[in-house]
């Protein structure tokens, strides 16, 4: 793999950039792999990379039905943070954040991880109680998360309106300074390039249509639109399509696939220095390096694989944004889009073995998948290589829906009395 650097770019600049090769190879699939990962998003590509890098398993294929990074990896609002409440969540998101901090160097690909701070606005006493609970738990766990007064919040993010007369006045904020954003496409491409360099096959336009098992029930490979491909182990990392793939192995999973929408504004000169989220008014916003406001909306209320949703969801989100930032009413929406998020009832992910030997599942990341990318990929690789979960992901198994040991981040932010 040719090393990327400022010198390489300068050298190429002098000769019309004729010397660059492909980011990743596009080989024909082999008849058999040690591991097949279904889903060429950040999680799947990353898992392949870590299988090769940390577990020495390089006879790996990533099968992607469309183009890599084209699912939720390329559709999200790129927020990164780790200030979750429960140990299981903190474990995995903090593991991920630590990987984010070195990811560009590790991959020799600039993923533009930008720790510009993620600020969550508190609007009432209940928010405050909930945020303090997070902050205290995070501090004792070694994760940064600070309580800010409204004035401190405004100093950190000048466009904030902290007037007490607002419909939802701000009574404080929780700030994770190490939180921030990264460039979503770069994550997929960086992992793909680094994995490909280590021998992983990245096979695009390859849709899995069946999961084959032998008479003992063990996975033997997958049927695809490009024929059967054998494998000793198969990992599913297909976000919204997890249920569809698991059904191919006759396993029902506790997942629902729903549209999640987002939008960007026209590009404007930088005015917004960090990420701001508000659970009470349901909105989050940051400004990209190109100057667009990147704004996340909520999920539509029904299951859908359409990657579209209703205007009312966008409206609801912009209501909130304009209420928090009244000067943004003249800003224009340039593009809206949707992805398919797979959500569990406890809003926490599933990573673990399945009832089918040799079949592993990484799913249910809901709206939190992008921030988890390196951590999830790293631990999923461990799971596939070792056949059992890493300590940091041990609580994320499917089993919890039978035992009741849920990791209910949503419930922890329960509605006020």
């Amino acid at each position, binding site marked *: 793999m040719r090393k990327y650097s400022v010198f390489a770019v300068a050298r190429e600049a002098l000769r019309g950039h004729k010397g660059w090769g492909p980011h990743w190879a596009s080989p024909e699939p082999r008849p058999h792999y040690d591991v097949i990962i279904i889903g060429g998003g950040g999680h799947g590509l990353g898992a392949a990379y870590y299988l090769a890098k940390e577990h020495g398993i390089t006879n790996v294929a990533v099968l992607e039905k469309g183009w890599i990074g*084209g699912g939720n990896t390329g559709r999200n609002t790129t927020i990164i943070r780790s200030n979750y409440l429960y140990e299981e969540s903190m474990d995995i998101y903090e593991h991920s954040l630590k990987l984010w901090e070195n990811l560009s160097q590790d991959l020799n690909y600039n993923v533009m991880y930008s720790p510009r701070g993620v600020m969550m606005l508190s609007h009432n006493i209940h928010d405050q109680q909930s945020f303090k609970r997070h902050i205290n738990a995070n501090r004792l766990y070694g994760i940064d998360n600070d309580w800010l007064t409204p004035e401190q919040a405004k100093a950190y993010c000048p466009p904030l309106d902290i007037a007490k007369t607002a419909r939802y006045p701000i009574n404080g904020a929780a700030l994770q300074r190490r939180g921030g954003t990264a460039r979503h496409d770069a994550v997929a491409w960086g992992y793909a390039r680094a994995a490909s360099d280590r021998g992983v096959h990245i096979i695009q336009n390859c849709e899995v249509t069946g999961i084959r098992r032998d008479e003992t029930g063990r996975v033997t490979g997958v049927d695809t639109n490009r024929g059967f491909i054998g494998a000793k182990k198969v990992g599913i990392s297909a976000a919204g*399509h997890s249920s569809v793939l698991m059904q191919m192995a006759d396993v*029902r999973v506790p997942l*629902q*696939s729903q549209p999640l929408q987002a939008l960007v504004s026209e590009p404007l000169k930088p005015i917004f220095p960090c990420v701001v989220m508000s659970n009470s008014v349901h909105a989050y916003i940051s400004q990209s390096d190109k100057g667009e406001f990147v704004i996340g909306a909520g999920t539509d209320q029904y299951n859908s*694989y359409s*990657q579209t949703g209703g205007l*009312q969801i966008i409206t609801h989100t912009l209501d909130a944004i304009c209420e928090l930032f009244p000067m943004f009413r003249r800003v224009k929406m340039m593009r809206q889009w949707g992805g398919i998020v797979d959500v569990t009832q406890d809003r926490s992910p599933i990573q673990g073995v399945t009832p089918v030997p040799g079949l592993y599942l990484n799913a249910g990341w809901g709206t939190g998948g992008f921030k988890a990318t390196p951590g999830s990929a790293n631990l999923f690789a461990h799971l596939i290589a070792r056949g059992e979960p890493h300590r940091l992901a041990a609580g994320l198994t499917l089993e919890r829906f039978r035992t009741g040991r849920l990791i209910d981040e949503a419930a922890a932010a329960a509605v006020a009395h």
Partner: protein
Amino acid sequence: MLLIYCPYCEEERSELEFRNGGDAHIARPTNIAEISDEEFEAYFFLRDNPKGVIFERWRHIHGCGRFFNAARDTVSDRFLTTYKAGEPKPNLDAAPETSATVETYEALEGAAQ
């Protein structure tokens, strides 16, 4: 914003008047206290989450207040039919098959023929 035919109001109304109620035809076991952990998991958590026709519940919460059922294609978001709560799952063979003919938005991405 979907347009949903309420079988009680006998009229199509905006999605704004409705609330989705998840999968239809999942009856709460009458002997629920006795069922196994696995059965409880299946009842409460496990879902088909189909890519294609889903049978789902809606409540006309800001209308007649009634829960009813719908068959909808989760790829096109088109409703095949809606019917009153308590009525059996309709036989959709009679209804036009839409999932095969409606082109998906997703399929559009990066590919047109």
